[in-house]
């Protein structure tokens, strides 16, 4: 094993890893709002709105993220959508993970006993106030866990933006394999960086989960 080479390429890979983190974090951030909107739309009183939201979720979950990425990046200009690679990665990532996240959020909300809703409404709380004060605090722990799982998927999925030449971890790894002819060394280092990122996400999720369950008995 070529230790010197590994030391040499580490800065390049760290820099690329930061792009991976950056793109994933932004997609997660925007994805959360998209997911919240989808949850709201799915419980709308107007049936066509509900159907539209459901259709969107179904189509996004039913097609490959990779094809979505290619469609928007290469096909986007045909519908007047010109995005630079990085922005495209963030946007497609957010709209993709948003569909999955809305299902996770809905699942967490539905896991709260329906008696809680009835009790709150009988006290005179409105729909939104019930959601905010009664349902969400109880749904939060499960929601945090499921979003955590999705965040990890998002990090792994972000490797696909290398195809539209965003210089993130997988892109850099592929280039270094080609230029150094040391696939094992490059693979080990870049794998290690993914592992560090994923464990950091798991750590954050665990921290938030503990905070969310501090006052509840689960």
């Amino acid at each position, binding site marked *: 094993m070529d230790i010197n080479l590994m030391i040499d390429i580490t800065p390049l890979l760290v820099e690329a890893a930061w792009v991976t983190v950056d793109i994933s974090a932004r997609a997660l951030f925007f994805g959360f709002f998209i997911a919240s909107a989808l949850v709201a739309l799915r419980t709308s009183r107007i049936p066509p709105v509900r159907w539209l939201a459901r259709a969107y979720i179904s189509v996004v979950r039913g097609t490959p993220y990779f094809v979505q990425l290619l469609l928007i990046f290469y096909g986007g200009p045909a519908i007047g959508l010109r995005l630079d690679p990085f922005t495209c990665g963030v946007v497609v990532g957010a709209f993709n993970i948003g569909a999955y996240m809305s299902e996770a959020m809905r699942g967490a909300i539905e896991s709260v006993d329906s008696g809680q809703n009835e009790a709150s409404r009988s006290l005179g709380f409105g729909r939104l106030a019930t959601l905010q004060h009664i349902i969400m605090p109880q749904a939060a722990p499960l929601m945090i866990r499921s979003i955590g799982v999705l965040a990890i998927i998002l990090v792994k999925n972000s490797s696909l933006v290398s195809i539209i030449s965003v210089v993130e971890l997988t892109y850099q790894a592929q280039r270094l394999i080609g230029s150094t002819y040391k696939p094992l060394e490059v693979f080990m280092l870049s794998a290690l960086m*993914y592992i560090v990122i994923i464990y950091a996400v798991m750590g954050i999720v665990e921290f938030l989960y503990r905070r969310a369950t501090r006052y509840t008995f689960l």
Partner: protein
Amino acid sequence: MEFDFSPVIDYWPTLLQGVGVTLLIGVAVAVFSVIGGQIVAVITLYTRKVVNWPLRFFIWLFMTTPLLLQLYFLYFGIGEWILIPAIVVGVLGLGFHYMAYNADIFIATIKSVSSGQYEASRSLGFGHLRTLLYIIVPQAFYRALPQLSNNMIIMVKDISVLSAIGIGEMVYASQYAISVTFRPFEFYITIAAIYYLINLMMEAGQTWIERRAAYRS
């Protein structure tokens, strides 16, 4: 903006060939990863540490790194030493990736089969291995079916990633057509539609399988 789907129709045979390749890879990887996952899970649970620790490590490694990185390593890395066709790299890469995920599920469901089942089988006179073969593993399989079919649905979507190492599934098959017709939007939306159809069929199949498996566990 205006759409023109006539190039898609012109190149329909090419695209259809891509669909065929996608489906073939899907079946091959499904069989490989389910059977392999089961074997890996049993070996992981019932052998000494020297054997099961490396296996656990590989399951973990495959689950914590992206598929594309694994494919690049296999394709450019192993390809440095031995010449293997891309299609083999693709099927093996995707196969090992999902074998790890399936093994992870099997490990959990094998553990979830109650010790009473083991005892009942042993009390009839079955040995350890036969008890695993006839009683524990089949039950674990039925219990794993919902998550297993989920994994396979996700796997089929990942076949599109194999285009990155030049395997002629739908995306790769249409790339030449795109480069000469300059109609990426139309082609990619068609590919998405085909994937969506496959996905709908697989989800229907999943519901059917789950209903049949439910009364066996």
